[in-house]
């Protein structure tokens, strides 16, 4: 079967883990890895895995886009450089899956709104954040049963799984995730908290989701909705698991869960890495299937 050719921008933890995920895809093929440091371990590994590489950033990739037939790019750099990367690649008709917190394009959490994006072709789709991918499905699982006035999520992440980009830009992570809890999760107000824990051996990604419902929560319906949503996420992240709850206290619903990764690039504790790369891959696959079926055609965007 024909596959859609992809470029990966950013050779850190996320970019490297993406190679493994995309290699397994029936419809995607990783062709290019873009970095900025010729000595980087990520570029070396990408070459060993058979990808073409450049250390000259996106500009090093642009001359090859057409000859290599690149149609989808994944950006795992930082919010600050994403807009420029996206503009350059969109101009060549390349669809951008954004894994930075830049949130230039519409926000995507696959089990919640992937289908909407399929019908509504955007040239840039944003994956929010690892914490967003892990928690927003469950905020939505509550808000689709009854209205949620406030949702708050707490993500605990192993220090070893957090790269320098995320560390230097924690505020962008907070803003983007909080806003996505509202826009995609369906809560009227959202708040996101992140904790980076250096324990050895590293702790598994843990997430706590608190929702305040307007009316008394319908326990049976909410619990069923949460379990169903967990099943949906498990289709692409098998280690997505409920640990405790849901606990009901007045109008407060509390859910305690963990995410184990597949252990592709980083060990299984780094579920945060997996849920991000798996969600991005699933999103790209949906577009790839549409392209291959001839339902959508990517067009170069006007350069402003």
């Amino acid at each position, binding site marked *: 079967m024909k596959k859609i050719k992809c470029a990966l921008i950013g050779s850190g933890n996320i970019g490297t883990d993406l190679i493994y995920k995309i290699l397994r895809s029936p419809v995607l093929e990783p062709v290019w890895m873009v970095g900025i440091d010729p000595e980087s371990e990520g570029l070396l590994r990408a070459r060993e895995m058979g990808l073409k590489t450049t250390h000259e950033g996106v500009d090093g990739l642009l001359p090859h886009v057409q000859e290599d037939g690149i149609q989808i790019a994944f950006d795992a750099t930082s919010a600050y450089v994403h807009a420029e990367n996206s503009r350059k690649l969109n101009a060549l008709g390349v669809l951008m899956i954004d894994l930075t917190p830049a949130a230039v394009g519409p926000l995507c959490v696959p089990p919640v709104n992937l289908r909407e994006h399929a019908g509504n072709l955007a040239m840039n789709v944003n994956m929010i954040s690892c914490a967003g991918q892990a928690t927003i499905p469950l905020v939505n699982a509550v808000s689709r049963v009854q209205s949620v006035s406030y949702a*708050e999520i707490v993500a*605990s992440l192993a220090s070893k799984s957090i790269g320098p980009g995320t*560390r230097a*830009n*924690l*505020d962008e992570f907070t803003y983007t995730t909080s806003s996505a809890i509202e826009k995609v999760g369906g809560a009227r107000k959202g708040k996101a908290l992140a904790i*980076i824990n250096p324990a050895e051996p590293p702790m598994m990604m843990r997430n706590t989701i*608190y929702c305040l419902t307007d009316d008394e929560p319908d326990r049976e319906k909410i619990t069923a909705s949460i379990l169903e949503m967990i099943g949906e996420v498990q289709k692409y992240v098998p280690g997505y698991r409920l640990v405790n709850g849901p606990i009901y206290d007045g109008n407060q619903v509390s859910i*305690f869960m963990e995410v184990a990764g597949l252990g592709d690039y980083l060990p299984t504790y780094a579920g945060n890495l997996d849920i991000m790369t798996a969600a991005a891959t699933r999103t790209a696959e949906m577009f790839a299937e549409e392209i291959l079926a001839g339902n959508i055609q990517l067009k170069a965007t006007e350069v402003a």
Partner: protein
Amino acid sequence: MSLLNSSGLKGRKVILHDMCLRDGMHAKREQISIEQMVKVATALDAAGVPYIQVTHGAGLGGNSLQHGFAPHSNEEYISAVAPLMKQAKVSVLLIPGLGTMQELQSAYDCGARSVHIATHCTEADTSPQHIAFARKLGMDVSGFLMMAHLNDAEGIAEQGRLMESYGAHTVYVTDSAGYMLPEDVTERISALRAVLRPETEIGFHGHHNLGMGVANSIAAIAAGASRIDGSVAGLGAGAGNTPLEVFAAVCDRMGIETGTDLFKLMDVAEDIIVPMMEHVVRVDRESLTLGYAGVYSTFLLHAKKASEQFGVPARDILVELGRKKMIGGQEDMIKDTALTMARERDIAIPC
């Protein structure tokens, strides 16, 4: 104990920073009124305390289901206190991942002029944008390395250098668990002093869970610290912070200059703070457990609540949290751990 020999410290100048109205919020389940804030802050100002921290216990962005909701926003508290200060500067706490630069701007607009930018003791590199932004605002900026017992002296020195490189004027060794002994403090402060620029100050923030707040703070000064956090009558998380009036009295006796009026501090403690307390902040079974097991002091009241809810003794929950190496900010894991322990012990969970 030669470090506690007073002779070498005579004439040293130390800047005191009161935590009653921030760390003390934890001991009051975040329920301090504006009137109480104003009363305490004006009395501390009159007693000559140069820095007074005023926010939710978890700092900027702290109002949450995770950390509890205070009756007022941080902006309301700061705006009420700051204009009344004759000499004291109002400070705030910001933990990246919880508080943001937008909230820091807003605190500054309300009158805050000093900030503790706090990270876990191994994660200083999550603070560069916040430290730089605070400097841009012209604030007095401290990098605040929490749970400092979980990093060795060399590691603390390295993390402190990072914070200095981002622009921090002061680097704090923060004994959030009240676990450290004087020699632990001496080691870490000395290591910092050896690598930081001479003009970069060093601070120490203690908790009194092993009754070592005052002794640790003196050890810190002997090793080169010039800023000490405490709270009058020890109103703070766990068994409280270093009791500021006790520390001021010891400084007086040793000839260390704090510029504060000891008797006025004693009056604030006895006449204002103690009557405000919901429970006597002291070394009791659970707060001693924090100090003994190296657990974040703020977990105290959360663990007591989880204990009541799920029937697992608070001490057992705290020891387990210590074993799992949970750190500041992971208050959700208290309830989670209690639930798991209740299940393992076949205790029926009410829900």
